[in-house]
């Protein structure tokens, strides 16, 4: 730690930490970041840039870092592209710079830099065109080998993530002096306050400065304030938390790193990172400002960093940027940095100020300390490869060109300051409008469109006293708006800090050769290697919009989203186009402010919790029976029950046979059930079903089809009339919620005069379908008091009574064609009913059957399944179900649409049966059908909707929708080429018991 000062800083010297970087071992202290520890050890080279693999070092000390990107850790916990400036050091940390192989120090891909003249902005659009076939085989694979920065882990993530939702009266973003005083003011007034800051401790810029507040060191003041805030019951402070997205209606989202700084020492059970979704009454943005680099020739060598960053490394981490620094600036404030370095015992070789006659207050003191002052000058070149070794300083002439007078100054670090960009990212995300201030060359928050105010440096107030005062005033106002306090801010504490002083915006320092000539690069975007010459090239090629230039050159498109690059870039563009900066404008700010892990965005909605599994009352039984489940929407339904070594086919055949020959039970609890009551219930049903319900007798059940007003079928089911004005409707499993909403929508929006109440009772009733010739015997054993004979309990009727000792509703409906009872008992007795049926049915060979057997059985009988025989383009007539469409009712949903031209087409697809000539061949569901064999393209005439090996018929059967199919019965057609053009016959869509003789047993 050669560059660590003997004392000072805010690190914990008692805790030494070991870490490895780019294969070398280092030491640092608790309180260091990876970047500060490297700087303290004299290491500036970290990684390589995206395009030219140029050596990259540490440019900043915070969230805006474009350059020092590292791959942290190894194995399943490795993480790509982290900013070394934000990685807190822990013992045992390992990291390596990105985009370098074998290492940042010796990167084999550095040859790309030498070919740079061939790779200007957008070069790839102009080449790799010939021969065309090379793109896929050669060019693109080569490009992809060079693409990307870090690496994704190779194994699943062992850590967990979660989310919190929170509301507050006042959300303060940024815990610098402005944010702290806003939070204090609002908190003291009694409002519910939340303060988030992305650093480990509060204090913001104060932590890196030697300013004093209220008579104490600024960082200490911030610490004390943090203590005061912590003591307020209604204030919540979150550090290591980035507010990354500002959405509509004052919804904001933040990203908290809970354990990253602990490394392997993180407690088990605690989520690694947490997403906070915040609904704020008012927002105070106190996000500070980012210092902006100056653009000069080869301004990207390791060892060149922002002046404020150097100052922070010095004051916060007690680390000197090097042995001898040169400062390059356009403003007074930066002199303070040189001053701090000198005071700390470091060496500043020279201050280079591009302004002809700066009047920085600290200039005399620096001169006195032996620092050379080059005014009206710029750095025209830098030297050194993996670290800056010297700079060429040149005197500027009146037009900003080089006058010819040059000096070479040796140094191992260059500190640059081009002024400050208020961090307006979140303000802009909130849809606020920005304004441009010419004098300081900055974009400032203008008109807000949401309930927010901006305080401190983010608002262009760069002086400490102003930050504190503004924060307090806005905090108090925000609290008042929420109904707390009278808006009077608490008095601002006295400060000892220099005023920011003057600045002359300076966008581009000339190099020794004209821009774009020679090897020197005026780097604008350090990550993506976008140079000032690239921007000029884009302008020359007709890309005039700043958005075009961004996309053509990729300026600002890296992981830092151009926090240090964008304003410089657009100013250089403005100059190239002969426009003003505000005329050029800026590119859109978008979330996230800094990148957020997918893991945190997913939270705990992963694995088994990714989406609810809906379970019936018998689920545990099915599980124990080893059933294979079929996902139907969110439900898990038994698909088939393997027995011994049954494969699916054998199991389904066994289940089907049991239903046809003995008895089977199916867990049908998932069907939607809606209880409909009221004097107008019948009117409602008459409108939503295609058939009539007014003619249905109490105690009887009717099957119905539901259509949209476009005439297309979207649901079906049976509805029982339980009383004069009382019905129970059933829906398909997947559509239960939708159908209830459908009824409510019509009732509430179109027919509010109807007196009807609809209540979902899907999960009140567990339902078991008991089917098969022995069904009556089985049920009789459990319902001795219920008359079950076909006369007392006819098909399509309902009875209430006791089954297996519990009150039940039993429906005589059949989806299999066999004698069948659907027994409904309260959900809490569903398992009891199932067990009782299994027991009572044992002597009759009762067999549980799953959805697959159910599908086979109903297909044999020719019953449709909505969503399988229909796809949203199918009418009842297409299904051959005219019998269920009322001719008498004047109006019902769907009717009108069938008069339209397309609904009347003769060649609409109609439901038919299909029998393969070879009875053993089962067509895959979805198979397309054609009239003749041949080479594609071949016109299709329809497709198979359902297809099974029918154990009952001992052959394959299928249902299909075929153009004009009803008139084509008996004709031979062919299945799609995948099947080898299997010949098939068009038949009736009923294969079993078309007379319905079996349904009564």
């Amino acid at each position, binding site marked *: 730690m050669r560059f660590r000062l003997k004392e000072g800083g805010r690190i914990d010297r008692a805790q030494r930490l070991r870490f490895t970087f780019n294969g070398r071992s280092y030491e640092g202290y608790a309180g260091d970041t990876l970047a500060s520890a490297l700087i303290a050890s004299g290491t500036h080279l970290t990684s390589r840039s995206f395009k030219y693999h140029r050596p990259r070092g540490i440019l900043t000390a915070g969230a805006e870092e474009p350059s020092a990107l590292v791959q942290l850790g190894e194995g399943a916990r490795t993480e790509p592209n982290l900013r070394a400036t934000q990685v807190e050091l822990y013992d045992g940390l390992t990291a390596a710079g990105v985009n370098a192989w074998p290492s940042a120090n010796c990167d084999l891909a550095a040859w790309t830099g030498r070919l740079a003249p061939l790779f200007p902005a957008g070069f790839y659009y102009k080449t790799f065109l*010939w021969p065309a076939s090379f793109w896929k085989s050669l060019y693109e694979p080569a490009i*992809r080998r060079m693409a990307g920065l870090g690496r994704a882990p190779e194994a699943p993530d062992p850590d967990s993530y979660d989310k919190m939702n929170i509301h507050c009266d006042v959300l303060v973003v940024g815990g610098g002096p402005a944010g702290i005083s806003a939070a204090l003011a609002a908190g003291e007034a009694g409002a519910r306050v939340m303060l988030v800051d992305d650093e480990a401790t509060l204090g913001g810029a104060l932590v890196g400065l030697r300013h004093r507040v209220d008579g104490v060191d600024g960082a200490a003041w911030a610490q004390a304030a943090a203590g005061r805030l912590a003591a307020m019951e209604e204030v919540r402070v979150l550090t290591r938390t980035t507010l990354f997205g500002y959405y509509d209606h004052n919804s904001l989202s933040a990203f908290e790193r809970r354990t990253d700084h602990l490394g392997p020492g993180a407690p088990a059970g605690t989520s690694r990172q947490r997403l906070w979704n915040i609904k704020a009454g008012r927002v105070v943005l106190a996000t500070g400002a980012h210092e902006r680099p100056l653009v000069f020739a080869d301004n990207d060598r390791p060892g060149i960093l922002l002046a404020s960053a150097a100052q922070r490394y010095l004051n916060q981490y007690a680390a000197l940027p090097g042995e001898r620094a040169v400062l390059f600036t356009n403003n007074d404030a930066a002199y303070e940095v040189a001053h701090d370095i000198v005071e700390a015992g470091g060496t500043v070789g020279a201050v280079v100020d591009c302004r002809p006659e700066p009047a920085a207050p600290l200039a005399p003191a620096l001169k006195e300390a032996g620092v050379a002052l080059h005014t009206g000058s710029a750095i025209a070149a830098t030297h050194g490869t993996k670290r800056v070794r010297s700079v060429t300083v040149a005197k500027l002439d009146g037009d900003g060109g080089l006058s010819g007078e040059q000096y070479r100054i040796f140094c191992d670090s260059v500190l640059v300051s081009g002024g400050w960009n208020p961090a307006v990212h979140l303000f802009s995300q909130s849809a606020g409008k920005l304004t441009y201030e010419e004098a300081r060359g900055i974009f400032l928050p203008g008109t807000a469109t949401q309930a927010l105010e901006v305080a401190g440096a983010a608002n262009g107030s760069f002086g400490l006293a102003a930050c504190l005062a503004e924060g307090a005033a806005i905090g108090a106002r925000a609290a008042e708006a929420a109904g707390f306090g009278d808006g009077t801010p608490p008095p601002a504490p006295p400060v000892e800090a220099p005023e920011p002083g003057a600045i002359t915006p300076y966008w581009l320092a000339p190099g020794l050769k004209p821009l774009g000539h020679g090897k020197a690069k005026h780097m604008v975007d350090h990550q993506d290697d976008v140079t000032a010459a690239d921007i000029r090239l884009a302008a020359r090629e007709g890309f005039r919009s700043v958005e075009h230039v961004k996309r053509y050159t990729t300026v600002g498109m890296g992981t830092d989203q151009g926090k240090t690059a964008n304003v410089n870039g657009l100013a250089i563009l403005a100059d190239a186009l002969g426009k003003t900066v505000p005329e050029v404008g800026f590119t859109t700010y978008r979330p996230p402010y800094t990148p957020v892990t997918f893991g945190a965005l997913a939270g705990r909605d992963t694995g088994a919790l990714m989406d609810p599994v809906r379970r019936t009352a018998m689920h545990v039984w099915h599980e124990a029976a080893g059933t294979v489940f079929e996902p139907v929407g969110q439900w898990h339904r038994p698909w088939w029950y393997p027995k011994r070594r049954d494969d699916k086919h054998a199991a389904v055949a066994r289940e089907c046979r049991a239903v046809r020959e003995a008895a089977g039970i199916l867990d049908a609890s998932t069907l939607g059930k809606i209880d409909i009551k009221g004097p107008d219930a019948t009117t409602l049903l008459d409108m939503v079903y295609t058939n009539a319900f007014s003619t249905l007798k109490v105690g009887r059940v009717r099957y119905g089809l539901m259509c949209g007003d476009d005439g297309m079928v979207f649901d079906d089911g049976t509805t029982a009339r339980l009383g004069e004005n009382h019905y129970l409707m059933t829906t398909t499993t997947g559509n239960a919620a939708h159908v209830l909403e459908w009824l409510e929508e019509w009732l509430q929006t179109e027919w509010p005069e109807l007196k009807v109440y609809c209540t979902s009772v899907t999960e009140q009733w567990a339902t078991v379908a008991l089917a098969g010739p022995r069904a009556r015997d089985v049920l009789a054993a459990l319902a001795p008091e219920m008359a079950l004979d076909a006369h007392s309990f006819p098909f399509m009727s309902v009875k209430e009574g006791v089954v297996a000792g519990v009150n039940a509703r039993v429906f005589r409906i059949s989806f299999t064609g066999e004698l069948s009872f659907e027994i409904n008992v309260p959900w809490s007795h569903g398992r009891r009913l199932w067990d009782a049926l299994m027991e009572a049915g044992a002597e009759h060979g009762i067999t549980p059957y799953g959805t697959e057997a159910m599908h086979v059985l109903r297909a044999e009988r020719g019953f449709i399944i909505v969503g399988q025989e229909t796809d949203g383009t199918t009418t009842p007539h297409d299904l051959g179900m005219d019998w269920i469409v009322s001719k008498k009712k004047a109006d019902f949903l769907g009717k009108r649409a069938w008069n339209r031209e397309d609904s009347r087409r003769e060649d609409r697809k109609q439901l038919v049966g299909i029998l393969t000539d070879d009875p053993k061949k089962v067509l895959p569901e*979805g198979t397309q059908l054609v009239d003749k064999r041949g080479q594609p393209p071949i016109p299709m005439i329809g497709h198979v909707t359902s297809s099974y090996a029918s154990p009952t018929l001992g052959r394959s059967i299928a249902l299909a929708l075929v153009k004009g199919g009803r008139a084509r019965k008996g004709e031979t057609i062919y299945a799609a080429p995948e099947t080898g053009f299997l010949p098939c016959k068009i038949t009736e869509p009923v294969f079993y018991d078309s007379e319905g003789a079996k349904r009564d047993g």
Partner: protein
Amino acid sequence: MKKFSIFSLARNALSHHEHWPEQWRSPAPKPAYDVVIIGAGGHGLATAYYLAALHGITNVAVLEKGWLGGGNTGRNTTVIRSNYLWDESAALYEHSLKLWEGLAQELNYNLMFSQRGVLNLIHNVHDLQEATRRVNANRLNAVDAELLSTEEVKAFCPILNTSPKTRYPIMGGTLQRRGGNARHDAVAWGYARAADARGVDIIQNCEVTGIDVEAGRVTGVQTTQGTIAAKKVGIVVAGHSSVLAAMAGFRLPIESHPLQALVSEPLKPVLHCVIMSNGVHVYVSQSDKGELVIGAGLDPPNSYSQRGGLHTIEDQMGAIVELIPIFSRVRMMRSWAGIVDVCPDASPIIGKTPVEGLFINGGWGTGGFKATPGSGWVLAHTIATGEPHPLNAPFALDRFTSGALIDEHAAAAVAH
């Protein structure tokens, strides 16, 4: 048009790249054109290009309210495929895909069109039925398509989690090998440059604020740069279709919604195809720059705000991480939204309008980027001849009266 090639790059490198010509001009609008195209997205620019290149109509202006390519063309997830269910769609999208296959050379612009395959995942029996139906239909329409088993899916894209223990296990997939991605911006720029070279005026920062109609016939447009007369006008404005239609006095079966997308930080490539899953609402690919490009779902309320809510993105991240567990520690770098114009049947409207001489191309919703060349091609034909080409005839506005919708929802594949 000066030819782009490695040689021109090398030559220009010698003169420090100082002599590259403009890729397109920035002309002032003329008082009148034969054809005015409203909207310089990919579709509008392609229309202009084909008008000039194939129909010899070069007195054409493309009017753009912002910067060319800045609409959905510049903000989409660039999935290109033609494996649509219905014959009408398959014909149109396949025509488009065929045009893509030679487009970079035709336009002399590297569109980075990359046929690394589009893989649609199957998670349940219903998906499997739909997939079979679609793959069969595609093949019969001579569109390449394959049905893959779970093992084949794993082999094609090893980073997918194919364990049967996941919440929505992968039961297989459908693959269109000729599908893939293209560089969205390059598509707009390539067409702009080629159209400009053939005499088309592309006028940016020129918003159309009114459509002039006399006796049922379009005569020109009002713009922020003045009135421009035109014999024929094409509305090709994607999310703003309804706004332009209203200017001409008719309504459309379209609603505009924000559709969000996001990119991760750039990674060394690990995903070489496009993954789509309708079942869990995921689609993701990795660009030639290395960022993962991910599409989110529609934000339900109509909106022209070009921004969405985070919840729409959150909803899908659980699914992404579940499908591709190694992405859990990867980070979202930027998210954004476009305004898409959604038709009830998820198919576009391309053809005539109630106003004579006024044509429309819109309603592409979440999936029109892939159609850019084909769409421009058929619209150019329609404008030039006054009648729709057989490829776009079924996509007429009157299908909403006759009921002859082309309901791609039935195909149940994500429409991107």
